[in-house]
């Protein structure tokens, strides 16, 4: 069947998450005709979303991926979203900035790679994104370069945050209420309307039904729409078409069972570090290490039971932060990590107990009887790129008839040492706070890398895109998501994805 044809637009943006949404809003604001293609649906959170983990399964990217290597990474709810807003529908809204030295790991340690851009390139965009989303956080912020005051005061500390605060105080580790992209006061969002103050539901990872959390669905997507962009949901892109010179001319998408060709003058790929390289490989686009250097943050968690009632589902999950471990003095590894207190929802916690401790039968039921007394600490640490940690297309087809991606991940010596250091640190903190039965859950979080940006630009052997996201050999195909990260950074990725997406959009507009 011949695909239905749509007229040429200036820009097609694939994906409406932390990369695609800010970028689309920027391009539309500059007067470009923009079509956003989103594989998932556009939810009505207030009406459709339940305070229930199982019912919210639809927020996750559930097309099956094959997890290989010595430390196979879980996908789905661990790190992959679908629907208008992408993974920001289920992120915890934790928005620390990267620190300047995160961008020059190789210069400082002789391992990993430096970014072709620095903190200074992103700083104005960090400022802009934080102000636009209504980030709630402490002012001044205790770590990193000075920044403008956050627009809103921090969210209140829950039980887990108070326990980490207590333990850290005993050990002389500085803590602070964290920066979270959920509004602590009623907030008028440009292009959207009122986002009411957070009610402390604690279900951020299962979708915010009130709009307090700054998912892209209540922030940059409505802004893009207000500026004239068009949004098509249920549109799964399978094909990218190019002319003989390598210029992208359009994309093929399946939408409601109909194959559609959308012609465009530029294509922006913002589908995340799995689907972005998968789409390139499916279309045999790009040179260099497409799919290689897959990274996942070291994310070991420490859980424990406390005599006090904690109520682990109440309040913003990541209430407290410490970046004193950003470059630990006694480190036997490169880079570092941040510490965050964590709340948790019951099904997620029980599942981790099952996988992590192997408890079952009466022992599992007994453990879970103490759920209201459970608190956690988590790290978010750097991960060095390794060419063998990579995504490839498997021989197995998914429900759409496309090859399932296989992702190889094996933690290196640096990740193992950092994890061991972090576990010791967290155990000391929780011991000092009065913990009982503490146990560690090894874990790798987020999807990063696979389409590395490189300093050399077009023609570089070790990079897939240049510093402005342009794909080697296809200058009107631009990538703006976590796949371009050359290294993982010792912070959660969402804020940096958004900031870099705005920077990428500006660079594209400057070059027109």
């Amino acid at each position: 069947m011949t695909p239905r044809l749509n007229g040429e637009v200036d820009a097609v943006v694939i994906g409406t998450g932390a990369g695609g949404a800010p970028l689309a809003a920027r391009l539309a604001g500059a007067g470009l005709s923009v079509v956003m293609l989103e594989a998932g649906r556009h939810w009505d959170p207030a009406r459709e979303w339940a305070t229930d983990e199982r019912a919210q399964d639809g927020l996750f990217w559930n097309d099956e991926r094959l997890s290989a290597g010595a430390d196979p990474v879980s996908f789905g709810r661990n790190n992959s979203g679908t629907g208008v807003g992408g993974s920001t529908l289920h992120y915890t809204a934790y928005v620390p900035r990267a620190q300047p030295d995160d961008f020059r790991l190789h210069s400082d340690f002789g391992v990993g790679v430096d970014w072709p851009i620095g903190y200074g390139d992103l700083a104005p965009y960090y400022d802009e994104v934080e102000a636009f989303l209504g980030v709630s956080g402490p002012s001044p912020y205790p770590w990193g370069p000075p920044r403008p005051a956050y627009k809103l005061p921090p969210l209140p500390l829950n039980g887990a945050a108070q326990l980490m605060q207590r333990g850290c105080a005993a050990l002389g580790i500085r803590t602070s209420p964290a920066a979270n992209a959920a509004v602590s006061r009623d907030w008028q969002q440009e292009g959207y309307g009122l986002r009411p103050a957070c009610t402390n539901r604690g279900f951020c990872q299962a979708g915010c039904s009130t709009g307090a959390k700054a998912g892209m669905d209540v922030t940059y997507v409505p802004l893009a729409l207000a500026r004239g962009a068009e949004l098509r949901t249920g549109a799964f892109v399978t094909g990218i078409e190019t002319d003989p010179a390598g210029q992208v001319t359009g994309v093929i998408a399946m939408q409601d069972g109909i194959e559609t060709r959308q012609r465009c003058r530029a294509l922006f790929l913002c589908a995340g570090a799995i689907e972005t390289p998968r789409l390139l490989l499916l279309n045999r686009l790009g040179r260099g290490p497409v799919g290689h250097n897959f990274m996942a943050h070291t994310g070991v968690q420490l859980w424990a039971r406390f005599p006090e009632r904690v109520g682990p589902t109440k309040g913003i999950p990541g209430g407290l932060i410490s970046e004193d471990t950003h470059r630990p003095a006694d480190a036997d590894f490169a880079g570092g990590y941040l510490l965050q207190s964590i709340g948790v929802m019951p099904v997620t916690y029980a599942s981790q107990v099952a996988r992590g401790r192997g408890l079952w039968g009466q022992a599992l039921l007994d453990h879970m009887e103490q759920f209201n007394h459970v608190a956690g600490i988590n790290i978010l640490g750097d991960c060095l790129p390794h060419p063998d940690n990579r995504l490839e297309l498997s021989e197995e087809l998914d429900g759409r008839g496309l090859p399932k991606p296989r992702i190889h991940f094996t933690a290196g010596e640096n990740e193992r040492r950092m994890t061991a250091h972090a576990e010791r640190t967290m155990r000391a903190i929780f011991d000092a706070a009065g913990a009982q039965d503490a146990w560690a859950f090894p874990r790798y979080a987020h999807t990063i890398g696979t389409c590395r940006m490189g300093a050399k630009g077009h023609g570089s052997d070790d990079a897939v895109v240049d510093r402005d996201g342009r794909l080697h050999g296809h200058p009107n195909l631009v990538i703006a998501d976590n796949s371009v990260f050359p290294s993982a950074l010792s912070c959660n990725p969402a804020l940096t994805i958004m900031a870099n997406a705005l920077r990428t959009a500006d660079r594209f507009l400057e070059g027109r």
Partner: protein
Amino acid sequence: MVRLAIRDLLQGEHVSPATRAVLLDRLDAPPVRTPRFLTPAEFRTLQAACARLLPDARVDVAGPMDARLAEGKSDGWRYDTMPDDRAAMRAGLAGLDGAAQALAGAAFAGADAPMQDRVLAAVQSGAPPGPAWALPPQRFFEELLAEATEVFFAHPLAQERIGYAGMADRPGWTRIGLDEREDREPA
């Protein structure tokens, strides 16, 4: 053990309509008698295993697991060392029977509870007796236990059992600190 009047809580003002609909449906769903994907014999094996993993007969764990397989739904990933979810379940359940035959001379569902526990522990350890497995026994056990646990603790009766009232989140929580509790939360 403290008991919440879970139905009263779900029907009260603190639970949103969307949340109430989901949880009452789950609470009132009759247990599955006829599997849609597994054979009746396989389903009995799964039911018997779930009864040992999550020993609370009020909650149907095997039914929703069979339904997921029937619908071909994924949670977004699987271990590359495992066959697809349907084949893994079939092979794993056959493995439970093989191990039970070797240990007790009976099918898994026909063995007594202590023997079933021995079989499950052997599978979890990665070295079950009996015929060689076509997939890693430890990974099968991990996946089986994780899914059973997720189904179980999503059920209102299991949530009541652990004193969880997080679904009653309207108009919000204000008492969120240590040793703080709203009136609608169990003591």
